[in-house]
């Protein structure tokens, strides 16, 4: 049964995630809310591993998510289901390659899809971001608003953001490694 659910969910992810790289994230977030396979916070660990290992990020996160859900079988099924719609669509498009490329319809659709994929990813990750930078578990407490802020974590986040912005050519692995060192030293 879990295999059927995996096939359906990752087929949908493959069919509707547009924009490459992190475009699968909003769908994985939706899966994490619907099934007990992994939590929204696990997504951050999956991204970290996916960015620091070889292979396309979308494939890596799907494999990882499938593994969390149902072990080795789950990861194979999740990955194949993610890839299946792409392969079919590309084979269909190959027959009318130039017509597809020059189509005004495709261009118009992407005029709407490009900003949407940025909004989707940020919207899906907002809760997870908040959980890493704020003491959200204190939300219901009486403490002052200031107590919510995890100051060391926010400072570390700002410092890393500045470095990523200043040195866009440095590889993400370096920042993930810096994150690991910082985490061991400061225990956020």
């Amino acid at each position: 049964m879990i295999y059927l659910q995996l096939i359906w969910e990752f087929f949908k992810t493959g069919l509707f995630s547009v924009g490459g790289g992190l475009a699968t994230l909003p769908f994985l977030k939706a899966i994490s809310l619907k099934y007990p396979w992994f939590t929204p916070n696990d997504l951050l660990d999956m991204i970290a591993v996916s960015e620091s290992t070889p292979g396309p990020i979308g494939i890596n996160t799907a494999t990882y998510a499938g593994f969390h859900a149902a072990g080795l079988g789950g990861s194979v099924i999740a990955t194949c289901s993610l890839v299946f719609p792409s392969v079919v669509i590309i084979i269909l498009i190959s027959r009318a390659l130039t017509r597809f490329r020059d189509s005004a319809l495709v261009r118009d659709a992407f005029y709407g899809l490009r900003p949407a994929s940025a909004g989707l990813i940020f919207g899906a990750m907002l809760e997870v971001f908040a959980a890493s930078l704020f003491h959200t578990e204190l939300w219901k407490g009486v403490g002052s608003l200031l107590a919510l802020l995890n100051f060391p974590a926010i400072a570390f986040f700002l410092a890393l953001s500045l470095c990523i912005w200043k040195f866009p050519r440095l590889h993400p692995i370096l920042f993930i490694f810096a994150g690991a060192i910082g985490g061991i030293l400061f225990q956020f």
Partner: protein
Amino acid sequence: MNPYLDLFLTFARIGVCTFGGGYAMLPLLQREIVENRGWTTEDELMDYYAIGQCTPGVIAVNTSTFVGYKTHGVPGAVCATAGMVAPSLIIIVIIAACIQQFAHLAVVQHAFSGIRIAVCALVLQSVLKMARKGVVDLPTTLILLITFAAVAFFEVSPVVMVLLAGAAGIAIGFFRRRRT
């Protein structure tokens, strides 16, 4: 060598050597597919890569399916894609199993508390880059804000928002052309 095995191994090699997703892959594809193999011309590859970004799914997979299909039809497409995916599958399963094994150690938990913050910063930076590329006028600004709010605060399914955004783009394009 068997042409299907050749496709599988070539794309497996590209998959292993690509760290950090689709955009890092282009120079490798150029060297392996265009220069070493001559399977496509430079122009064809650039076309595949551009269209791979305008079709659903993972860009690297879309590009490998194109090249495989062009050289050896449907079986070629399947072999090339399988080659692109296989190294990820093996490496991630091993790492995921290892992390599960060591997740209870305090030092691993501390490391991940910092890694998660780094990932937040990296994801935010990519989202900003995507937003700068996608937001070009008022309608695209609205589309970004609406999709953000729908997913962040109302838990609307991303499938619905993707369909709506595509439809909105087509509708806006249609009205603009009629006006001019």
